[in-house]
């Protein structure tokens, strides 16, 4: 198994289709295959151990990804938003490497040993020259499947970032199990706006290319540019993180009824964080012809492991049954190739409806970090550290990281239930609940709330709202009004930053 096998099939099956870029003038599958071959020779000749990239999305991304696979070297997309110092530290950990850099900042790794920086434009020029000299080399990639295909550095909450290892067999299993070869029509195009260093950015390239869907890239997300690109490139599907969808909905809303909507967009998938219920409800109403898909997955699981499909969305939205309606906030059902089990703290499976830790098992699940003991259990289960529960129809409800659970007076309280009540209010734009040290209760609940524009809710209003809908121990002990909540650039709420910012609201005891 090798990622190159997927591209070889695509080039053999529909080599003349455009793989990446505009319909006119984009890279065809055959050309992508040839360039990957040329790149593989360059990577091998360099005598490096990794091919890294600290750059925004471009056609160089799939070329380097597949070129690295052909050369049997792991591909390492690095977060180009890191400071020079942070970037140098990560690049140093994978030396000797070739590191493709953004032409706007080509000197970022100057003087850092073994990182082999090369400007993206230079790389593409060299490959075009090399490719002109002859046909692609013979397929000689390793088919064993055990080699690392992609390393993704996770933004650890403490200490050094860990490098998640995705082997060829994990990623190939994921694609074969979830994507139909050439399942896309020739007119289909997918817009990718998540960055390469996010697992969804990698999965987007692999899945769409195997389906035969043209990939259009938006290097830096901006709602206006995203909407513009959907319209100009007649985009038929896209994947976004929650913060992106929130901004897209606001943008379309501001265009008003005279806006031209997104008529070509057949499918919109979202994931990578908790989607605010008001955002998804508004999006469903605004885009009645678009099929919505919620994808739940982790870096360590090679992307998606559970899906809430289009039918489930519309059914939930239309239902009066609160249980069915609640599915709008669920991750849907596991993929056919994935098993999900909810476990208690001792690793025993809990009853349907009971909360616990989400465990997953399947061939795409890696659960492995470079240099650390595997997180998989002996029988192949991966404890995700996400809390969640399964409903009676098998829908998976994910409640957030277990580490984020607030423990007040011995009771476990999931921040998400409090947050859902708050963000559903008209006078609240965004909200987060965290636990801060409290001598009497262990932790106290602090809600950080961003008021909606022009609204001025009081702390009492919000506490009453939570008290009226949830058990009384869920009521925030304190409500702090803030201008904005801290998010990562891929839309994850940074709770540790929030906890640090609001540390003065605890009483200084340690929990």
């Amino acid at each position, binding site marked *: *198994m090798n990622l190159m096998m997927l591209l070889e099939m695509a080039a053999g099956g529909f080599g003349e289709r455009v793989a990446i870029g505009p319909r006119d003038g984009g890279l065809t599958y055959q050309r992508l295959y040839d360039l990957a071959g040329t790149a593989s020779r360059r990577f091998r000749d360099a005598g490096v151990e990794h091919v890294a990239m600290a750059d925004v999305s471009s056609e160089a991304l799939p070329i380097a990804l597949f070129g690295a696979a052909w050369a049997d070297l792991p591909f390492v997309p690095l977060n180009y938003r890191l400071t020079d110092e942070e970037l140098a530290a990560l690049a140093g950990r994978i030396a000797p490497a070739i590191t493709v850099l953004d032409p706007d900042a080509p000197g970022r790794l100057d003087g850092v040993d073994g990182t082999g920086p090369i400007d993206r434009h230079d790389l593409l020029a060299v490959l075009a020259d090399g490719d002109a000299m002859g046909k692609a080399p013979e397929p000689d990639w390793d088919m064993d499947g055990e080699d690392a295909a992609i390393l993704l550095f996770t933004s650890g909450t403490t200490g050094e970032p860990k490098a998640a290892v995705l082997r060829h*067999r994990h990623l190939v299993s994921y694609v074969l*199990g979830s994507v139909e070869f050439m399942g896309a029509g020739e007119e289909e195009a997918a817009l990718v706006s998540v960055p390469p260093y996010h697992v969804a950015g990698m999965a987007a390239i692999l899945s769409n290319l195997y389906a035969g869907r043209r990939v259009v890239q938006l290097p830096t997300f901006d709602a206006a540019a995203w909407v513009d690109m959907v319209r100009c490139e007649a985009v038929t599907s896209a994947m976004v993180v929650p913060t992106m969808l929130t901004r897209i909905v606001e943008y379309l809303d501001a265009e008003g009824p005279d806006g031209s909507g997104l008529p070509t967009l057949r499918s919109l998938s979202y994931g990578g964080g908790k989607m605010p219920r008001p955002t998804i409800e508004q999006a469903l109403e605004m885009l009645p012809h678009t099929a919505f*898909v919620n994808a739940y997955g982790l870096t360590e699981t090679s992307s998606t492991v559970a899906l809430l499909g289009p039918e489930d969305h519309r059914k939930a939205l239309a239902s009066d049954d609160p249980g069915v309606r609640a599915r709008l906030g669920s991750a849907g059902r596991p993929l056919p190739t994935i098993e999900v089990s909810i476990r208690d703290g001792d690793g025993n499976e809990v009853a349907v409806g009971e909360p616990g830790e989400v465990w997953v098992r399947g061939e795409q699940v890696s659960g492995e970090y470079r240099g650390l003991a595997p997180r998989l259990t002996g029988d192949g289960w991966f404890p995700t550290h996400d809390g969640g529960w399964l409903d009676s129809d098998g829908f998976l409800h994910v409640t957030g990281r277990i580490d984020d659970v607030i423990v007040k007076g011995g009771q476990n309280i999931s921040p998400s239930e409090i947050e859902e009540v708050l963000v559903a209010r008209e006078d609240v734009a965004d909200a987060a609940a965290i636990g801060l040290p409290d001598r009497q209760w262990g932790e106290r609940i602090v809600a950080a709330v961003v008021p909606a524009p022009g609204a001025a809710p009081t702390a009492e209003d919000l506490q009453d709202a939570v008290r009226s809908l949830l058990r009384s121990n869920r009521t925030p002990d304190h409500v702090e009004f803030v201008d904005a909540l801290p998010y990562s650039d891929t839309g994850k709420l940074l709770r540790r930053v929030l906890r640090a910012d609001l540390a003065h609201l605890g009483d200084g005891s340690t929990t």
Partner: protein
Amino acid sequence: MVDLKPGARFTSNACASEVIVVKGTGQADLRCGGVPMSPAGGESVDGELSPDASDGTQMGKRYVDDEDTVEILCTKPGEGSLALGDALLGLKEAKPLPASD
């Protein structure tokens, strides 16, 4: 008999089919079009397509045995049907999933 392991490639001796093993280990009598398949790049033999194994292979489709011990991915289509010995492999029907990436 050929040696099956994930990633191993085989070519048909009765038609244009080429396949990759997704799942399966050990010795097996992998056939296409009724004729034993050869490891890719290895020696090929002239075989004749058997009418009993001529439903064809489809690009990108996966084929499995009844016991689910082997899974074979077609990477180049042809006229022959895949089989272990005389037992034809069946098409692995997968319900299409909505695009999530």
